[in-house]
């Protein structure tokens, strides 16, 4: 599996991580994905995806206790390489979407 291609699910996990800013760890990522997509999300799948992203250098993690205190959590951040990858995949998608709008939404310009 080439390292510079993101799976759909990994893509979603990266997006959720970005949206959550400083508060991204497995639990919040699961909840964010469930909230946005409206579907059940398996924490195990999120965990595996995060590890793969980290191995690929697209995300980085650090251990720290939550602001309210308590046990340590593993918080994730998107790395510059991850941001590049997302920019690139957004560029591809946008290019693909080009000219499709009129088919999907016939009324709009």
């Amino acid at each position, binding site marked *: 599996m080439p390292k510079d291609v993101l799976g759909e699910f990994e893509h979603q996990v990266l997006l959720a991580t970005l949206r959550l800013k400083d508060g991204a760890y497995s639990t919040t990522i699961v909840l964010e994905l469930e909230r946005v997509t409206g579907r059940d999300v398996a*924490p*195990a799948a999120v965990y595996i995806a995060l590890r793969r992203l980290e191995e690929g250098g697209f995300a980085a993690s650090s251990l720290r206790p939550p602001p309210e205190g308590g*046990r340590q959590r593993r918080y994730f951040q998107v790395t510059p390489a991850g941001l590049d990858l997302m920019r690139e995949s957004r560029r591809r998608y946008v290019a693909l979407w080009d000219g499709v709008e009129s088919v999907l939404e016939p009324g709009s310009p």
Partner: protein
Amino acid sequence: MSPDEDRAPPRFWSALLSRALPPEDRDTFPGELAELYRRRIRREGPGPARRWYRNQVLELGLRRAAKALRGITTNSTGGGGMDGIRRDVGYAIRRMVRSPGFTLVAVLSLALGIGANTAIFSFVDAVLFRPSPVEGRDRLVDLFTRQEGFSHGALSYLDLQDLEDRTTDVFEGLAYYRLGMFPADGDDGSVEMLPAQLVSGNFFTLQGLDAAVGRTLLPEDHVAEGAHPVVVLGEGYWERRFGGDPGVVGRELRISGATLTVVGVVQPEFDGSLRGIVPDLYIPVLQIEALDPTAPDFESRGNQSYFAVARLRDGVGVERARDALVRETERLRSEEPTSWTGDESVILERTADVVVNPMVDRVLVPAMGVLMAVVGVVLLIACANLASFLLARARDRRREIAVRLAVGASRGSLIRQLLTETVVLGLLGGMGGATLGWAAVRWLETADLPLPLPISLGLGLNGSVLAFTAAISLLAGLLFGLAPALQATNPDLASTIKNETTGGPRSRFALRNLLVVGQVAGSLVLLVGAGLLVRSLIARQAVDPGFGGAPAALVEITAGPRAVETGEAAWLDEVEARVADVPGVATVGLTSNLHLNTLNTSTAYVTVDGVAPPPDREWWSVDAADVNDEFFQAMAMETVRGRTFGASDAADGARVLVVNEAFVDRFFPDGDAVGRTVRLGSDGVEHTVVGVVETARIRSLGEAPRPFVYGSLRQDPSTYVHVVARTAGVDARRAALDVSAAIRSVDPDTPIYSQTTMERHLAVVLLPARLGVWMGAAFALLALTLAALGLYGVVSYAVARKSREVGIRMSLGADAGRVVRMLMAEGLRLVAVGGLVGLAAAAGFGALLSRFLYGVGALDPLAFGSTLAVLVAVAVLASWVPARRATRIDPVRALKAD
């Protein structure tokens, strides 16, 4: 329980989670998952939350395993065809990860089935298929004596001397050997009993066997009695005692009081001549008297302890060799009429056709067949189970597959993909099975079974066992995958895509039903088999052996150097007195032939006036022993009439005998034996019967009452005795150690052959029956569990198909009991059909088992009845649970479901 604990994730699964995670995540991820778990509890309640948690743990474990596996498969790059297979394997792994529950059940039940097959096959392989290093084995024959009631016995040393000289026209050479257990002195003063094979000088050369170190025994070592005190070590003993040191040649060993020089180590592939008994020592047979001064090998033709192997001359066939043996039998009869009587003859069997001994093989080989059949049925049931699960799943996947067929996937490639899934499952099950099988074999090898001999088969997972396991794993994967794959890819596209909810074609359901019927029938067969074996064991245990009702320590000894100095009678008196002083010993019995000892028999020639000997014979051959005065008391045997021996029966006084009731029935039909005369031996010495005791079992528990004569040890001192020390208030095992010490205090060099308790001695006789019951019960339980799972699956499936109907009925206020009954009826109909088929098959299986049964018929109504009851109970439960659950379906959900 505090609210906090209540909200902690299930302990088992959270422990498993920690194991599935890499160490660096064990402190963080479990806590994070627990947060989500608590949310689930609030949202859905504790039950669903627990199930959700469990699934997350399983999924994580499988995903991590799959990742590791993918690492392996992607690293091994193959050619063009491999790419497709790799893609299929990857897809299969992803699908397995997606349904962790099914994967777990499938792999586990396959592992159990394959594990049982692996364990049993490693046993069969060790006994039947292990290659022999003997050269030109197809030109070798084994020689035996045939006699009424004993088809393949051993020969005597003197007879073999004659045969060796006179059969050179048909045999290139004739070698012989006997087995013995001898005490070896360790370096630290300990004594260890070692199995040894005493061999003729040409034994190794005739069979083309080599030495790993030094040399083997050679014809030069076989020149004169006691002239060559040398020994060749077995490979196992060499490793164990000398750490495989090649410098062992030239060292001296103290064996049974004699000093032997090591001349070599035999090649590691050779495990001795008698499968199951691996000799530690190979010693020239002419040394026997140095090791056991009492062995009568060289004097008496009646001492038949030797087995012989001969190599056919070039151009000589087995038939010609047989004719030569007929000729020699005639010659022996005319030259040695006292020992060679009418019904005895020398016979041969091809060595390649003999496993242990033809008499043992007659039981052993069918037993292996039955065992393989039993584990085969267990595996088939496991496969049938998975096939029926997959058929149910195939229904869920029909749409996916139909779409793929519609967009142009070939049916062949889809079948290949579906089969890849089941084969991957099969191979995972195979790995688990190999592990389970290995564990079972390890347990068998190390278990402290009450065996009469140090039996060692060298069980293990060698190449052929692993090849077998891999083959059945693959076969299992194909077997349970093929039918579902064919069904699922049935190209009836249009109806499937259009209408996915109204159930599949009728035939698919019928196939599943057939599988359940098969499972029920198969497990019934195994249950009946186990039931018959249990009944047989109970019947055996109910047999009163006629002795040993009181606890006793048993020590088997032979006279050491001191007995030679003082005379045997004085030595025996001293042993008896010292053992009687051991604390906790109440009575000391001595006997030259212990009842139900599986290794030796001892008989006396008996003539009684007025009772004609058997045809062609001058006397009766009756089991016999010489015993001391207190023997009967020590053995807890009842005296029926007259008296047992006492001080009045002096060594040089009138010769006396005690006989058992079976002897009276046979020789004194008028029932009055006391005071009558019995002649013993070929010279007919007169003995007077002084008492009659109850009939004990002599050779086996199942035997018809056997006549037995007890002579007085005082009048006929023996150098080989079993000491039976009846104990009171102490542990007999502990007492056996003290008794041995007391015997050694008379003569520290006394060879002690065995040291055990009465309880264990009797357990030896029951061992085959007990092993049969353990295995039978274990496999039957396994089969029943699998069949119950299958039945549960079928009823759940039927319930799922009818959930809309049930929902409507329930919402209309139907009686829950009636709905449950309706749903259960479906499952129980299958049980009834399977039960009938199974009963018929079980009757056949019972006939197959009948030779292993004792005191119970192959159609024992109790075994059949109770088995049927167990099956029905399990079946009712397996169909009641899902049916009951169905009535709790929320009608609204059920109606919306489709």
